[in-house]
């Protein structure tokens, strides 16, 4: 048993070292789909600033619940208006700096090797399309959006029996990549990540539901100044360019 002590000492050293205290550190809770873009923006921000940025990536509903319970979050970047609205009603969001910064586009993706020619939404009714993956249309934003869109096109009734509900966008993408389903609805930014799916068609921005990514500082932020500063950088030209590179639609 004596051999365990060096390991323990090393481990405790690791503990003390990891949460090293920085000057001003802000915590940004952001929707998982923003991970790559925000990480890049964060690095760019830190290179010209002594403030440090930490990100907490997760599903918007989870993040909202954490903030509701008093998580020490400085900025909330949601993939969904409703979650932001809920927190704002509870007085947890600073309405002054709130912005509807980004939008995303729904796209229909097919496996790379798919021979199906799906060019219009009504093609989903074709008998050779047997299974369509969709993130839970009751709870997950992308699922909710997709359902709304199909309803507005008058296709939901016909398509509903073919729907395979999966847990989230990523699971939708994996089912399509593996060829286990014939098609799936995902965000344009997600489709850009995968090399093994192709976009059959994009839902035109004016026809699809409004997919909005709002961002705001929290009321309880202890680093208000730094948070506002980072918010400003995120919506600056430099920030917007990064978002566009990842396929987001920037709302002016």
């Amino acid at each position, binding site marked *: 048993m004596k051999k365990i002590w060096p390991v323990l000492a090393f481990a405790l050293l*690791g*503990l003390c070292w*990891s949460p090293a205290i920085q000057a001003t550190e802000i915590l940004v809770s952001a929707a998982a789909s923003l991970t790559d873009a925000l990480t890049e923006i964060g690095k760019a921000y830190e290179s010209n600033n002594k403030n440090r940025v930490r990100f907490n*990536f997760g599903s918007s509903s989870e993040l909202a619940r*954490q903030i509701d319970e008093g998580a020490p979050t400085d900025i909330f970047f949601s993939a969904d208006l409703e979650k932001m609205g809920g927190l704002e009603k509870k007085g947890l969001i600073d309405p002054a700096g709130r912005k509807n910064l980004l939008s995303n586009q729904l796209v229909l993706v097919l496996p790379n090797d798919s021979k199906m020619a799906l060019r219009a939404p009504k093609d989903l009714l074709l008998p050779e399309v047997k299974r369509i993956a969709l993130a839970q249309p009751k709870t997950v934003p992308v699922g909710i959006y997709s359902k709304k869109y199909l309803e507005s096109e008058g296709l939901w009734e016909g398509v509903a029996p073919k729907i395979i509900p999966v847990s989230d966008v990523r699971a939708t993408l994996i089912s399509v990549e593996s060829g286990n389903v014939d098609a799936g609805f995902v965000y344009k930014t997600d489709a850009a*990540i995968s090399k093994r799916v192709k976009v059959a068609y994009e839902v035109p921005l004016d026809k699809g539901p409004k997919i909005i990514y709002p961002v705001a500082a929290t009321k309880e932020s202890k680093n208000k100044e730094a948070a506002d500063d980072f918010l400003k950088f995120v919506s600056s030209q430099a920030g917007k360019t990064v978002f566009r590179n990842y396929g987001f639609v920037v709302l002016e």
Partner: protein
Amino acid sequence: MSAEIWHITVFSLAVALASTILILPSAIVVSWLLARKNWPLKMIVETFVMLPLVMPPVATGLILLKIFGRRNPVGRWLYDHGVEVLFNWKGVLLAMAAMSFPLLVRSARTAFAEVDPRLEQIAATLGAGRSRIFFAVTLPLAWRGIVSGCLLAYSRALGEFGATIMVAGNIPGKTQTLSLAIFSFVQLGKDTEAFGLLLITIALAFAAVALSERLARSRAKI
């Protein structure tokens, strides 16, 4: 291995170890009480302790979030005294401890139950008091089961995901553990990175099994 992955690995190992050490004393006391004593409400306490085993980890995380969140008395009190538990390494520690506690208690409880009470009785006739009986007879005889329980708890802590993401978030460089990092990489479609971390996890699993085998063998020799 990149600095980031190195950091994630060391952080996960360290916090999991700390959580195992943290729960060890109380797990020993609880499992001994469960194995050896009959007391009122025992079944209720037992169920309560085992709850994280049957509940979805997210639910456990939610309960911890409720208890330690700033809007609730416990969390409020801690916050007022300058202790912030959520969304830093303490939150990770808390989630890991809560999730692995029942596993350690289960193993240790079986280990205590297997100690022949006759040996404890004889120790009493030889003049040993309660604490000496416990530390000189019961505990050493149950030690093997407790150690294997620790390895189990440690492995569970390393794999913990659902409760951690609720209580500590998924903050790269701060609360991101191996499991959370794998989740993030999968979410982002970075399969290569995810598999890299998976390899580390598998290597750690092998190391844990090898260690427990070694412990078992060295005990058998005595």
